[in-house]
């Protein structure tokens, strides 16, 4: 049995058709020298990153080694560690400790809240529910940051909806009890560290959910089954399989929540007490006080802390499963 498979001679393509002019010659050149194309594509972003971004960061770092003349208010452009000496004053250390504690608590709470949501999205949500998940997580990011914070100020105010809700549930004693505690308490939630904490968690939560969800998405479902098959209870499966494999995602998310909290100056200014966070200190030092070297030194603090944080995370094996 033979089938006629010969094509009409006229339509048969040439074996090596010529290139199509300038554009063709250019694409042939890039095909032969892929490094050239790579160089052309990378040059603009590398210039941006190297000069504009890293460069200005180094300019900032350099500022922190200058000092301010206390009488004239002029900046003395000579290398000195005096500014760092100022940074280590008790009042400033207090600000640093307060900010780091807040950032750590916000990160921890974000991880705890984000994990079940991310787990649901990665494991169970399909089709329309998945779209709804992304919408639900991203939607708050589309509206103005300031509007959201002021909305929270109303929610947390003494006459706000939260107080009303507690009253309706006959749980006002619980709220009052909490507010009467030292440090975390205050006149109302909107002027307490608890309020600052709640709003921080709310605002940064999407930045934790998305990387954790991405990490969980990459965990094959049969690993959970295998763990269960080998006798691990759901809790053991979480500890021994899911958590270690989601850890890179949690660390990635915590880099966002931790560093964003370290640097933010708007949330604690609108919601919380009058005690300062690093961001506010930077703002007031370079603005009202005009002490740019000290502001720069304050800025170095989050960078150093994040450096240590990442180093510690790497040592703990957070990136092993990548």
């Amino acid at each position, binding site marked *: *049995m033979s089938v006629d498979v010969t094509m009409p001679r006229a339509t048969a393509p040439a074996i090596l058709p010529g290139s199509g002019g300038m554009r063709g010659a250019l694409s042939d050149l890039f095909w032969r020298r892929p490094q050239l194309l790579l160089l052309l594509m990378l040059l603009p972003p590398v210039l941006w990153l190297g000069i504009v971004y890293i460069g200005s960061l180094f300019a900032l770092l350099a500022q922190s080694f200058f000092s301010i003349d206390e009488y004239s208010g002029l900046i003395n452009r000579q290398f000195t560690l005096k500014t760092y000496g100022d940074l280590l004053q008790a009042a400033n250390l207090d600000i640093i400790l307060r900010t780091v504690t807040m950032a750590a608590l916000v990160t921890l709470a974000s991880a705890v809240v984000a994990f079940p949501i991310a787990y649901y999205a990665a494991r169970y949500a399909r089709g329309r529910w998945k779209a709804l998940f992304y919408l639900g997580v991203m939607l708050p990011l589309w509206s103005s940051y300031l509007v959201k914070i002021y909305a929270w100020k109303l929610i947390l105010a003494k006459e706000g909806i939260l107080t009303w809700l507690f009253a309706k549930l006959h749980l006002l004693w619980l709220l009052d009890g909490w507010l009467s505690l030292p440090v975390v308490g205050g006149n109302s939630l909107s002027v307490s560290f608890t309020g600052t904490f709640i709003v921080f968690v709310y605002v940064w939560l999407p930045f934790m959910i998305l990387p954790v969800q991405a990490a969980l998405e990459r965990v*094959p479902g*049969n*690993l959970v*089954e*295998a*763990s*269960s*098959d*080998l*006798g*691990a*209870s759901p809790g*053991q499966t979480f500890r*021994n*399989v899911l958590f*270690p*494999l989601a850890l890179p995602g949690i660390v990635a998310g915590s880099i966002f929540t931790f560093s964003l909290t370290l640097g933010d100056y708007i949330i604690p200014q609108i919601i919380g007490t009058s005690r300062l966070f690093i961001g506010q200190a930077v703002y007031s030092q370079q603005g009202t006080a005009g002490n740019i070297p000290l502001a720069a030194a304050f800025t170095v603090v989050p960078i150093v802390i994040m450096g240590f944080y990442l180093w510690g995370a790497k040592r703990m094996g957070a990136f*092993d*499963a990548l």
Partner: protein
Amino acid sequence: MTSAVSFQKVSRHFGSVRAVDAVDLDIAQGEFFAMLGPSGSGKTTCLRLIAGFEQPTSGSISIFGERAEGVPPYRRNVNTVFQDYALFPHLNVLDNVAYGLMVKGVGKAERHKAAEEALSLVRLPGYGARRPGQLSGGQRQRVALARALVNQPKVLLLDEPLGALDLKLRENMQEELKSLQKALGITFVFVTHDQGEALSMADRVAVFNDGRIMQIGTPEDIYQRPRTRFVADFVGSSNVLPPDFVQRYSGQHRWGSLRPESIRVSRAASGEGVAARLVSTNYLGATTRLALDADGLKLHAVVPAGTALPAEGEAVMLTFNREHLHLMDEPA
């Protein structure tokens, strides 16, 4: 003796899909049992029902006489070798193998010793420090096997464990699995779509189609005496003969099956036999497979390599021993 695994009228429906439909099954202790069928036939769902990943929609499952419905996978003394091995990527080979003992609270030194022994059993001693990503497919398969065996399961479930291996490795592993099963005396339940694998390894084979078991029997039973057209065709792709054809040779108006290797092909243009035309020849190495057309009935014959063959398109005469013509239960 109680059965290792027993299904009574077990069904598992996913919405309107009857993945497993009223299956009755008894797997004896120490048996090497194969579940054979095309994809979507319900064999893997049956395995998952034994493992506990699925719960039956109706019917009852017992494992060593104990009712298993509602018992989660982690409370069953049954272990699975997964199709794509499902090794934990963040643990090294030794910790992968020791995982089952670790979650049971066995101390580190003891469980590592047991894991090392299990690795020797699958002929991978000293591989403990490696990561699963550094192993070849065949080695991962052995690690998955060791990880299951270290728990000393009552029943070992294997979900197409050899599917991803190349031919040579697969043949080696078939022999090894078979001898391992004999040595350990554990009940093996093996899911495969490869009929050769099922026939060569299993003590008994269940042939699945559309969520039902078509036939359960020894490999000889299944191969020589298929009960339905499906079994005849799926296991060894037998020639399924229509009742009218069968009646001429056996006197009975029933469906029949004739193995390709039972057909002799000769060039004689006349004489006793079935007149046919050779459509094509397909060289398979040890054998050659012939596609034949006997007056509209498509047949296959397998002849040893080296046999002198007529040219494609030529008229041939087919003969076969009438004893080899097997009549099937299926009504005409």
